[in-house]
């Protein structure tokens, strides 16, 4: 894949996870603080070299971080599904809050996974607390393996970079009237980085 132009979808698949992780790093915090100090100093001193240094202080660490820790390459967009008049529909309100509402103790989530074309393999781990179960509706591609006990979806020689998934999350023993909030965490199983987190809410 090296040398080939990557599609917008795959650049997006890399950029968003990178930005999300970089923003929460100490490096971003430190370089942002120093860059801001230099930027203020450049204004006070009217110094172009200081202004350039300030810009460099923002950009160089980000580029260095990207080069050092690349590839960042799994993007997952999940939409919780709700039932309206017996029809299943995307629950855009819950999605905008990064929530999924467990009605009668369960919720279905549908969505797409984009794997960066720079990745030859991937491991996606879905994790929920003990009281909750999570199941993948089907195994999307023939090159995928799924471990139902550990809730791990993986592929070694990736050739399909975009595919759809359907998840079912439900209480092991549902008791009506309980109000809880549980996290559903989706991680990159290679390095443990969080890809997405959704609050599973009962109301």
């Amino acid at each position, binding site marked *: 894949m090296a040398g080939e132009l990557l599609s917008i979808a795959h650049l997006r698949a890399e950029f968003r996870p990178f930005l999300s992780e970089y923003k929460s790093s100490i490096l971003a915090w430190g370089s942002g603080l120093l860059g801001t100090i230099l930027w203020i100093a450049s204004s006070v001193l009217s110094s172009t070299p200081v202004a350039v240094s300030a810009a460099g202080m923002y950009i160089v660490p980000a580029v260095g971080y990207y080069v050092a820790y690349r590839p960042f390459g799994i993007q997952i967009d999940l939409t919780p599904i709700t039932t309206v008049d017996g029809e299943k529909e995307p629950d855009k309100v819950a999605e905008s809050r990064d929530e999924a509402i467990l009605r009668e103790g369960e919720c279905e989530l549908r969505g797409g996974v984009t794997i960066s074309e720079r990745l030859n393999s991937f491991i996606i781990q879905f994790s929920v607390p003990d009281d909750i179960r999570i199941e993948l509706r089907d195994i999307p591609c023939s090159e995928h393996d799924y471990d*139902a006990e550990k809730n791990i979806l993986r592929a070694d020689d990736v050739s399909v970079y975009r595919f759809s998934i359907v998840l079912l999350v439900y209480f092991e023993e549902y008791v009506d009237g309980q109000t809880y909030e549980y996290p559903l965490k989706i991680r990159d199983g290679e390095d443990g980085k969080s890809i997405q987190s959704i609050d599973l809410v009962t109301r």
Partner: protein
Amino acid sequence: MGSSSLRRTRIPGNGQRFRELSDLSTNGFSLSDVDERTVGGLCDGYPFDGQSAYSGLIEYSEDAMWGGGREIELEFQFRDQSNLFILDAEVDLPSVESVIQRLNSLSSDDVKIYRSLTVHRERLWDFLNNADKIIDLTLIGDQGTEISFEELDSELHEPEFEIEQYPIESATVVFSYEGEQILTRYTDGALSVHSDVSEATEYLVQLFERDVIADSGD
């Protein structure tokens, strides 16, 4: 018409472990002694010929919304090589899930009956395409919305539309075995088989085990 609902299960050890399920009876929910039989192949190239099937009866009372209720009797079966759990009912049940949930909560942590079969999408498509007739089909589109049978008709003319990449929300198909029509429905990740002839049901279960469950050797 009798129906059989197929689920995937995990029971460590072997089928003998399944016998212990008969000790799980509680108030209003009882399991009878488990019998063992050997499964003989009905379809060509059946990969689980000789596997053991452990079966027994579940009896419980189903509450009615306005009082009363009814006694329900279900036959259950566990196949020790394909790891399928099958619930057979002669009546329509409001929720097979509630029975599965009770079995899961009664059994120990290492025994699990899953709600979804979680099979390879591609092989499920092949299985459904081999049916004699597709009566209904609903897919899940890119944005999580459903694509109905009617909408599919127009989509199929789009050159870039690859139908088999989409997850199946539900499918109703008909297979036949020695003149007997077997209505088969895949929905919410589980398969149900509807036939009054037990051998026809067994044939369909074996087709599913062969074409979808068995190791494809990829």
